C-alpha cells in the first residue's frame, strides 16, 4: 500500500499526481478505455436533444452534431492517454505522473465520460451511487472506480478556473 495519494502543484504549468499503488494506478490507467461509450453507454453519451419528441431533429443531430461531439470526446481520451505515458514508478512511494495544467479540462471531461459510461454499463442508479445498496463483484468495483474518479475530478475542478 502506498503512503498517500496526492494531487499537487509542481509549478504554474504542471501538476503532479503521486502516491498511487498498483490498484489505483490501474484505475487511472483505465480512464481512456473506461470513457469509450460502448453499447448502452452510447445512448447516455449521445442523448437525443429533444428526448425523442422530434425525430426529424434527432436525425439531423445524429448526422451533423454527433460526429463533432464524438471527436471532442475522443480528443479528451487521447489527451489523458498521452499524459499516462509519462507515469513513473517511485519505489515505495508508488506511481507518480505529471499532468500539464493545460490538459486538466481534458482530464476532467474524460473522467466524467468514464463515470457516466461505467454507471450505464453496470446499471447503477442513485441508490447504488450514494452507497445505500450493498454491491459485490464488478458492480461494487465499478462504484469504487466511479467514486475514485469523482475525487480526482473534484481535485482538478478545484484548481481549474476554465473548463
Amino acid at each position: 500500500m502506498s503512503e498517500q495519494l496526492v494531487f499537487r502543484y509542481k509549478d504554474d504549468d504542471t501538476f503532479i499526481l503521486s502516491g498511487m499503488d498498483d490498484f489505483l494506478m490501474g484505475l487511472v490507467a483505465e480512464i481512456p478505455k473506461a470513457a469509450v461509450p460502448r453499447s448502452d453507454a452510447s445512448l447516455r453519451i449521445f442523448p437525443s436533444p429533444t428526448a425523442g419528441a422530434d425525430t426529424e431533429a434527432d436525425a439531423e443531430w445524429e448526422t451533423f452534431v454527433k460526429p463533432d461531439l464524438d471527436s471532442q470526446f475522443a480528443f479528451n481520451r487521447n489527451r489523458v492517454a498521452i499524459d499516462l505515458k509519462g507515469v513513473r514508478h517511485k519505489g515505495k512511494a508508488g506511481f507518480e505522473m505529471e499532468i500539464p495544467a493545460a490538459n486538466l479540462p481534458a482530464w476532467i471531461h474524460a473522467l466524467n465520460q468514464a463515470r457516466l459510461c461505467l454507471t450505464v454499463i453496470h446499471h447503477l442508479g442513485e441508490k447504488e451511487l450514494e452507497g445505500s445498496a450493498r454491491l459485490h463483484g464488478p458492480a461494487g468495483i465499478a462504484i469504487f472506480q466511479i467514486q475514485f474518479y469523482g475525487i480526482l475530478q473534484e481535485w482538478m475542478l478545484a484548481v481549474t478556473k476554465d473548463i
Partner: protein
Amino acid sequence: MDVPEIEVRDSVSSDLPWNVVVHNDPVNLMSYVTKVFVKVFGFSTERANKHMLEVHHKGRSIVWSGARERAEFYVQQLHGYLLLSTIEKNS
C-alpha cells in the same frame, strides 16, 4: 419604415418559445455542473449554483429560453460537457 420593424418582431416572436432544459443525473458532480453553466451561459456563480440546485432537487431546470436555433446551440454545448439536456417548446 414601420413595416420591416413589424416583420422582424413577428419573425422573432414566432421562433421564441423554446426552452433549454437540464435534467438531473446522479453522476455529474455539483461543482462540475455549476462550472459548466458559468462557462456556457456566462452566468454568475450564484445564478449557476441556483440552477444546479434546481436540477438536483427538482430534477430539471430551464436554464435558457429563446429562439430554437440558439437553444440547439446551447444544448450542443451542454452535451459536449455531458450534461443531460434537451430543447422543449414552451407550452
